[in-house]
């Protein structure tokens, strides 16, 4: 090490290394050849169904598509699982552990893939955290700051559905609600279904506030699946036309 290149800080000579490139905060995706499409909405809004239909369509047309799900980082998900299983997550740690998971997916998958020109599809994105964490009592600005490293999506679809419709869909499809999913940690109600209703109501209100703030693209999730999908594809198509280079040769 060249100690002559030292600077004096306090009583010591220190050597300041060149700073590595930090992740730009609030990345615009326009810098990247890839495209990022994400879906948002409360549980039971049908967003995952729509995303999987979009995925198949893009693949059939020869695009290099990669899918990334909320809460799926191999480095972090065991920690999240432990916290949920032992019910030891507070609003603060719930927020942070999900941000850690998202950071790992951003740093090691989403960002490199976008740089490489892939079409990246995310089931839930930062807006999920904004809605849920604030519904749990976290400060809205703090949570927004927390996710400043996130890449801004090309299009953020918000599948808007009334609470009752979502609850009916979920009750038809499964037996009950999980502890954190129903916001049972907030002590709103001892009855899971009632707690779910109250908590998701808060989450829904947060989503509604974000439509203008983040220019979410609203899809009416009460329409037939086919109609929603055709709207989604039309919008996605427009953003692909401007980025022909992402097409894979097969």
């Amino acid at each position: 090490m060249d100690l002559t290149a030292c600077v004096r800080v306090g009583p010591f000579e220190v050597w300041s290394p060149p700073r590595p490139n930090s992740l730009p905060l609030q990345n615009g995706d326009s810098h990247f050849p890839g495209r990022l499409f994400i879906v948002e909405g409360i549980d039971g809004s049908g967003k995952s169904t729509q995303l999987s239909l979009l995925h198949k369509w893009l693949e059939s047309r020869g695009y290099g598509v990669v899918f990334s799900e909320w809460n799926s980082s191999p480095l972090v998900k065991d920690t999240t699982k432990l916290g949920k299983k032992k019910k030891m997550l507070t609003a603060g740690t719930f927020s942070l552990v999900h941000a850690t998971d998202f950071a790992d997916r951003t740093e090691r998958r989403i960002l490199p893939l976008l740089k490489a020109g892939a079409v990246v599809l995310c089931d839930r994105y930062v807006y999920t955290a904004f809605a849920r964490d604030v519904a749990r009592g976290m400060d809205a600005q703090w949570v927004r700051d927390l996710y400043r490293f996130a890449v801004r999506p090309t299009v953020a679809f918000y599948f808007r559905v009334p609470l009752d419709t979502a609850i009916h869909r979920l009750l038809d499809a499964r037996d009950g609600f999980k502890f954190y999913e129903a916001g049972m940690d907030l002590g709103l109600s001892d009855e899971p279904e009632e707690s779910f209703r109250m908590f998701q109501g808060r989450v829904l209100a947060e989503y509604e506030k974000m439509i203008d703030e983040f220019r979410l693209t609203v899809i009416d999730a009460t329409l037939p699946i086919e109609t929603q999908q055709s709207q989604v594809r039309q919008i996605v198509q427009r953003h692909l036309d401007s980025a022909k280079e992402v097409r894979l040769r097969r």
Partner: protein
Amino acid sequence: MREAYGRLLPDMRVADLKGKLIVIEGTDGVGRTTQINLLKPWLEELGHAVIETGVSRSVLAGDGIRRAKERNSLGSVTQTLFYATDFVDRLEREIVPALRAGFIVLTDRYIYSLIARASVRGVDPRWIRSIYSVALKPDAVFYLRLGLQQLLPRVMFSRGFDYWESGRDLFPALEVYESFCAYQSALLAEFERLSAEYRFEIVDATFDEKRVFGQLRTGIQRVLEADSRENGNLSTPSDWQSYQRVNFQQAFAAALNGNRLAASASAAAQLRMPTASGNGNGHAHRSQGDD
């Protein structure tokens, strides 16, 4: 009253936190652990209940961080957030409950090391500060200060160069020794900046461990004495009079505002004072539970 650097986390009550939060900071190999191992029995002998905590010791995220570090594949933003998860878990489930029970919390590093590590890795310094704005302000931060030249032999002849302590993730192209020097220098520079920003009490760690221990004891004693004055350890008449005056003023103010409940509570608190003063400064002597 105790406060956070920014907004408190939801459901965090701080009005009744009567314990003391004492931070020992410093870079790797400077002797923080040695000092904490001396301070704890000393404080206990004085009758204070003590718990110690430190980075990545949380039940929630400790194992996850260790596993992720073994794989050497942790990005700098992810690393920062993993440590923040660990910190908040310990803050909420360990530090705050202990402070509420009147313990002295000795913490081996606090948010400052975490801020330094992230800053050196090029993470936006404003971003890290905004995350850690939920941290409680401690009663004192003792920074064990040592230059690189004095640090080197301690590390070389004790544990050797560790992957992360040598900043190998930052400087993979450098030899271990150069990487260690570059990384630790950068950390020291960052600590100097933090020292001014967060008003560290600087402890000269170039001395042997007994003298460093002496410096720390003096500093901690001062923190504890300030505490006993605030809490009404009424050994001198003048203290007693000023205490009475304050309480009468509070009672009057409350009465003037028509708040009878507060007035009577304040007066009642006053009546209890002589017995409270007999109990010393409020640090109950407790046997320590599991670490």
